[in-house]
Structures are given as C-alpha cells and as structure tokens.
C-alpha cells in the first residue's frame, strides 16, 4: 500500500514523443483508471510505472521513493496483462507461487498465501490445472491471484477485461473493484472502454494523443469535460457537437450537448429531420440530421412518443447544458 506520484512524465521513441508530460498524485488505496482510444499512450504510461519502458523525462515515485532507475522487481508492483501472461508450463498453484518462490518465502507461507488468494478468487478446485485447461474468466482470476499473493504496493492492470465476453466483463469489473477495496491496494487501471472507466474509477485520467486531457472523478468529468475530446469520448452515445454557425453564433466555437439533455419539442432552437429510431426498452435513441448535414442523437424516455422517421422536428435544451469549446477544442 502506497501513494504513487507521476511528475511531468514524458516518453519519446527516438524523435517521436508519445507522452507529453503527465502528472498526478495518487492517494493510498485509490483506484485510478487511465482511459483513452488506442494509440493514446495509456499502456505506455502504465508500462513506465511498471518499469517495462524507460522514462524519458520526469519522475515516478512509489511510496514517496523515486523509482525511475529501478528494475520492475524492485518497484513493489504487480501487473495483470491483457493476455494474462500466465506461465503456460506451470500449474495454477505454481503460477501464483512463482514470485514468492523467487523471493525465497518459506514453503509453508507460500502455501498459505496461495490458498488464501485461491479462496478469495474461487480458484481452489483448479490449483493443479494448467492454464490451457481453464476458461478465459478463470485465467483472468489466476492472473489476479498472481498479483495478489505478492502483496504489492501498487496494482497495475493493462486492459485486463478486453479478452472476455461482455457478460463476464461486467461481472469481473465488479469483482476487481470489490477486491481492490477489500485489499486496500493502490491501483492503476488502463482501459479503452469508457464504461469501465466510469464505473470503476475513483478518479480517471482521460488520455488523448499522449496528453492527459483531464484528470478527475468520473461524474465530474462527465458533467464537466475540459475538452471537446473528453466530451466526445466519455458518455455513450457520445456528446452531440454543433458548429457555432448552425446556431447563429461565432463560427470559431463548437457547442456540445449530451443526448439526454436534448428534448424534441415545438419550442425549438434547431430544426432536424428524424433519420432513425432505436427503441432499447427503457429508453429510445432518436437519430436526427440537421441542416448542415451533421448528426444529432437524442436519448429520451421510452414513455415519450416516438417521432416518425423522415419528419422534421424541433430540438431544444437548457442553456446550462451547453458546453462551448474553442477552435483548439478547449472548453470556454
């Protein structure tokens, strides 16, 4: 258990800068999710904390101690990989015990700690099996178990759920969160799935092209995105963007409104043509097209009447729900 500090951490591969300086102070026991599209540098950032990539500039501290030059094994971290990275020739027990054996922990203690982790993760019946004899979810758990038994200061997760099916993903994300709370370990979790970020994070870092666009609590980030990118990336369906010209304002600005904040009404700010309706049961997504060809999605309660496809309707929203961005994508 420890704090984790990133101080203007940068990474370049040759002349290409992939991370342009990320800073964050992670509290002891906090669950931080790094979220962003592929290629935004989120995995690289995690691997720099792990010690698998060198740090070009800046500083990483774990428990107040600078670890830039330290080998991965000296950093007191554990990592769960996207493909689990289990040792294929070892049993589940040996997979979990590997790190402890190397650390020369006494045999009786190894058995005790592995048994504990196995119980926690419901892996007890599988301890003598090889990884190839396990299902995806079970392998995922073994990878977790391998991280837990070492009692590290920081957990690192590199897209651990992306190889699981949708249903299992929802279940595992609750389990990981519950486990992390129970153990009270600081965690850094990388994902490209904004739902995982929203549901799991104490705070999240939204990465875009090697820059941390915004760091904050999920609901704060959702309600108050700092950039056009964050507004578009967090939330599903994504925020609707309209040009200033469309609404008769400065052409420099862009106006974003979330789908649930727009209502279809006669007191209209904007005319739009209904192209398609998706009734999801509890809610309906109405897809529309406005005069300049850009698309708008409206999320409305299923109890509201469905607009007919092809008809023109009026759209309206409250001023407070508008988010204005300048030409560079920054929030005004």
């Amino acid at each position, binding site marked *: 258990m420890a704090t984790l500090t990133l101080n203007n951490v940068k990474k370049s591969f040759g002349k290409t800068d992939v991370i342009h300086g990320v800073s964050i102070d992670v509290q002891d026991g906090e669950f931080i999710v790094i979220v962003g599209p592929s290629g935004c540098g989120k995995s690289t950032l995690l691997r720099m904390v792990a010690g698998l990539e060198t740090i070009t500039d800046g500083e990483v501290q774990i428990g107040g101690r600078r670890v830039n030059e330290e080998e991965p094994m000296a950093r007191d971290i554990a990592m769960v990989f996207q493909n689990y*990275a289990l*040792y294929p020739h070892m049993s589940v027990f040996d997979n979990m015990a590997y790190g402890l054996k190397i650390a020369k922990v006494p045999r009786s203690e190894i058995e005790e700690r592995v048994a504990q982790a196995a119980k926690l993760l419901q892996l007890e019946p599988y301890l003598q099996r090889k990884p190839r004899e396990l299902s995806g979810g079970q392998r995922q758990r073994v990878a977790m178990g391998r991280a837990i038994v070492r009692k590290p200061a920081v957990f690192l997760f590199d897209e651990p759920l992306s190889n699981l099916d949708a249903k299992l993903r929802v279940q595992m994300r609750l389990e990981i969160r519950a486990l992390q709370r129970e153990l009270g370990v600081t965690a850094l979790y990388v994902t490209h799935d904004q739902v995982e970020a929203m549901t799991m994070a104490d705070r999240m870092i939204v990465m875009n092209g090697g820059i941390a666009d915004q760091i904050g609590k999920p609901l704060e980030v959702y309600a108050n995105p700092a950039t056009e990118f964050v507004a578009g990336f967090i939330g599903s369906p994504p925020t609707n963007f309209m040009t200033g010209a469309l609404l008769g304002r400065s052409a420099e600005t862009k106006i974003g409104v979330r789908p649930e904040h727009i209502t279809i009404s006669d007191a209209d700010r904007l005319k739009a043509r209904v192209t398609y309706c998706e009734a999801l049961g509890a809610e309906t997504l109405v897809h529309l097209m406005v005069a300049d060809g850009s698309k708008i999605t409206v999320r409305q309660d299923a109890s509201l009447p469905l607009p007919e496809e092809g008809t023109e309707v009026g759209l309206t929203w409250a001023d407070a729900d508008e988010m204005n961005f300048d030409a560079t994508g920054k929030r005004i």
Partner: protein
Amino acid sequence: MEKRVTFKGIWLPLLLVLPQILITAIFFFYPAGQAIWQSLFIPDPFGLSMQWVGLGNFEYLLSDRYYRASFVTTAVFSILVTVVSMGVALYLAILADRLIKGSGTYRTLLIWPYAVAPAVAGVLWLFMFNTRVGVVTWYLGLLGYDWNHVLNEGEAMGLVVVASAWGRISYNFLFFLAGLQAIPKSVIEAAAIDGAHFWTRFRTIVWPLLSPTTFFLLVVNIIYAFFETFGVIHTITSGGPQQATTILVYKVYSDGFVGQDLGSSAAQSVILLFIVSILTVVQFKFIERRVHY
C-alpha cells in the same frame, strides 16, 4: 477439419504416387536390400564369388575392438558436435532476440554458413589449421602452441567437431530464434515483475517453453553428426590419426572402399540402418505428439 480429396478407383492415385515410389524403390529399397544381402556373405578379393557366412560378419564386427572404438568415437563426436552447435546457436539466438535495430542483417549474416557444403567447410577449416601453411596454426605457433592435428588425436577430433558444428550453427540458430520469438513477450515481462532476473527467467520460463524446439534440434543434430559429416572428416583427417576420428559412417567407407572388405562394410551399413531407424522413430513420435508443455 482438413479437406480430403477422394479418388475413385485405384489406377489414378497409383499413377500419381508412382514417381515417388520408383525413386524410393530404386535409390533406397534396392540398395538397402543389397546391403542386407551382402552383409551375409564374404566376397573373394576379385569379386568373382561370394561365400555364405550367415551372421559371421556381424559376429566379427561386434568382437572387433576397432569397430567398438568407432562407436565410442561416434558417440563423443556426435555429442560434441550437437552440444557445440546448439550451445553457440542458442547463445546467438538469445542475443539476436534482444536486438531491435539491425536484427535482419545480423540474422542474414548468421544464416550464410548454412549454404556452405560440408566438404567445402572441411577444406576451409583445413586451410586455416593446416600444420604448415595454416593461418591459425601460425598464430598459435607465435603463442608457443604447436598445433598438429595430423599427429594429435585430441586436436584432430577438436578440429572436425568445430568444422562440423560451424555449418550447423546457422540452422540451429534459425530454429532457436523462431522458438524464442514464439514466447509471448508479456510472459517474460510478468516474470520480470515477479522478481526473476535474466538467468532465473531463462532457467524457469524460457528454457522450459523452448524445450519442444530443443528436443527437435537434438534429434536432427544427432542424425546430422552421425550421417552427414562424412565430407568434413574425409577432407580434414580422413579418419585419422590412428582412427581417432573414424566415425561409423566413415568406417563403412574406409573398410569397404579402401580396405575392400565389402562384407564387413555391408554389415556396418545394416547396423547404421538400424540406428537411423530408431532415431527416425523417435523423431516421428515426437513430431506427431507435438509436445505441449
């Protein structure tokens, strides 16, 4: 499932496999049969008549101390060639695997020796170590070491081992490199995070995961050392000095074609045939099983 083409009737499929069967029959079954047949006779010096001796040739061979010595020589030679060529290849493969820049060039250069025929490789090494004009011999002389593989049995063995292993390193290197690159990088990284340093990682993760490759190469290299090193030995030492480098295959040649003892030579071929069958069975069993760790 693999799609199989089924032929109606027997004549077309037979026709299609006929070339292969003909080649195998003429160049393998016929001479092999001849060898087995000849091994039961002793021909007279002019080759005009043959005398039936049953298993006499074999009895004589197995009680012949030179033949038994040749077994030991072959074992020593094969083990040394296999260990040297695989050891060096593995070392180079590990280095190449860690390389990011220029690994292509490195790989290409390392593969070249494979294109050199064994006899040519033998002559190459012979020139370097020639007792009178060899470059290496000359430098060794400067250092005060008198290299003479024509007289010294150990040096002769060393030289044929190095010359045989050299050409084989490329082949082994390719397989080891492919084997290393097939190990997921994240598994190695996980081990590093688990606290394993390079050597521990190699011992506990890389080596076990590489074992299918290693086993395959072991069999292939032993077969190579047994049967394909004739050219090297013939050009460098001709089996000498004092039969110190006469491996079984070379003895078949020297007893049969130099010593004109065709009956014994044929019997030796049969024994070799037996050994190679065992090795082939081992190899096929292994390949069929496709070892999973």
